């Protein structure tokens, strides 16, 4: 975690705003690779929020980090706080870059497909691709012109309500051997792209996707932490991970979005049903593990090894 100063805040579209952070003394920031995200910490009244955002600035530019945040009015409040409360001049706590969506550098060609705000990791990756001279193709699919953001040269824009809906079959057909496909967007969009690719014979090892999950709200539930001998209640708009942290029980994490696997926790007893929302656990692991960052429980009592 480092303290960085918010130096610029500017709209990219009606709902998406770009934020730039710099070191308060102007010191260079650590290099990252395109696809990396940072955890942004927000003190929202009494609530400490931590949201992960992909870095969109040039990874080789050590003078600042930039992120793009889409305002989610139905969300838990983090993006709203960024849009309303975060102001240039503020010093905020930002995590070190972590990369869970790196380019596969063995690829002979990179096919990047973004839906809506899912464009963010690709904005940094195309800088890296340009620098190493790797061939790539970037597609941005949006519902309406209001979602458009400035795109790098050569990117192709598909606006569905203007009749230029993305033609996946056309994009996926005829790609040279060794092309890797990356997709970032909503769960529905990711599934549609991956299903189309698999149906055309693309193997799983050429397919890459990233979806950050926000912890879904739900009914409050009770958890017993066997190792710390504590029993707590997870609030309706709180994640299990946040409840653990509030009770002073530390669990490791990198993404807080069900993808990195760090907070994986053993379930000791489960008098009820776990709602697994993560992308990490295999089906056979779901019987005895839970990802506290995004998954919830319904029932009498969940006992975990924390």
């Amino acid at each position: 975690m480092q303290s960085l100063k918010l130096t610029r805040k500017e709209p990219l579209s009606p709902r998406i705003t770009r934020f730039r952070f710099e070191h308060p003394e102007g010191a260079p920031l650590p290099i990252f690779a395109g696809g990396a995200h940072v955890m942004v910490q927000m003190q929202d009244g009494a609530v400490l929020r931590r949201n992960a955002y992909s870095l969109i600035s040039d990874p080789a530019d050590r003078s600042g980090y930039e992120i793009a945040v889409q305002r989610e009015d139905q969300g838990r409040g983090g993006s709203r706080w960024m849009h309303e409360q975060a102001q240039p001049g503020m010093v905020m706590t930002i995590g070190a870059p972590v990369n869970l969506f790196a380019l596969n550098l063995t690829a002979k060609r990179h096919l990047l497909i973004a839906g809506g705000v899912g464009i963010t990791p690709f904005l940094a990756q195309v800088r890296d691709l340009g620098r190493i001279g790797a061939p790539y193709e970037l597609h941005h699919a949006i519902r309406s012109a209001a979602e458009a953001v400035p795109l790098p040269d050569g990117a192709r824009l598909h606006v569905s309500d203007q009749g230029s809906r993305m033609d996946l079959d056309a994009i996926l057909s005829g790609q040279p051997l060794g092309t890797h496909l990356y997709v970032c967007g909503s769960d529905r969009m990711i599934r549609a792209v991956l299903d189309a690719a698999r149906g055309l014979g693309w193997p799983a090892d050429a397919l890459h996707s990233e979806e950050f999950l926000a912890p879904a709200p739900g009914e409050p539930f009770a958890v017993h932490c066997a190792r710390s001998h504590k029993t707590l209640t997870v609030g309706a708009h709180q994640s299990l991970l946040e409840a653990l942290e509030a009770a002073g029980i530390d669990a490791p994490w990198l993404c807080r979005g069900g993808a990195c696997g760090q907070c994986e926790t053993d379930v000791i007893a489960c008098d009820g049903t776990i709602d697994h929302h993560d992308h990490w656990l295999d089906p056979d692991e779901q019987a005895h593990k839970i990802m506290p960052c995004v998954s919830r429980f319904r029932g009498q009592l969940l006992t975990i090894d924390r």
Partner: protein
Amino acid sequence: MTLTFNKESFRGDYSYHNSPAAIRRFPFPFDRDEYMYSVNMEPHKGGRDGSVFQRRFDVDEHYVAEMEDRAITLARDPMRCQSLPHMRLAGWDLLELIMVSKSEDYPDLFQLTRDGDRWRWVNKPLGIDDTFTFLDDATLPHGPMEYITRQTQGDFAVLDQREGNLWMDAGMITSQADWSLDFDIGMNFFEWHAPVPRAAEMGIFQRALKFLMNVQVDTPARRLNWTMTVNPRLDTSPETYPEWGPEKRSLTPDNIGEKQYLRVELQTFWRLPRSNGLAFPIRCYLCSLQDIVTVPKWGRRLHRVIRDLPDDLATYKGFLVNKPLIVDYLARFDDGAPTSPGIWPD
């Protein structure tokens, strides 16, 4: 700290030797009187003053001689250093990591001056003063990985991370414990560990992989590994096995203290920021049994560890044939007294 570099060899007359100070700082790998396979990973964030853990890339009295030995090995077999084409960026990552670390940790030995992409690198012990353009291979006499690892002790595996696995896609390997980069290059974590006995049953490899894939730029990690080598030889590769194999059978009760070496690998793990690869330096330290036993705790403990080691592990580590001789020798230095916990001398 002022360092004097030994005039010594790791082949031929084997004039390699440890000073008393080097023996005291030898990374003895056993923290108890028995050895269990384990991941035993800890953060690589410094360590005791003067210990091999203190600096990011330890430089010791063997530095210059080790680099000369590497040059000999490479002249005989250039394939000990290889990099698959997609690892070019990771090579620059590694060069940057080492140059920045060494110039900060040993400013009297190494200097790095950066003016944008124009870099000047001064390596005083090896008499190098080069200016080059960062990320431009043509401005260096070798590829970036080869250039910097010809100047850095230890072997270097540079791993690519993809598909939920780590891939051995580049390396400078001239002091290995019997594995071949030329054969293993391109393999994933499970494939290159295939020759480890009982590996399949051990969940520790999966846990280790999970741990390594989550190493971050600001959280380098380390562990110790060990084996036994007859004579202070760095190049114990399978390629040259016909050269060093016969030496393994040259031990006698009279020469074992002098000729049998405990070989310890300080393995460190570094996330490379530009390529998202993982650098895996494997630094080798050699100490003869007769030097080991000058630390009474180590003599006692090493005897107990080797005596109780299962034969399949001794086979894998390549010293089963010499195990009885080693145990007999070390028994003379084990009076049965209890030993203190931890690796450090009392």
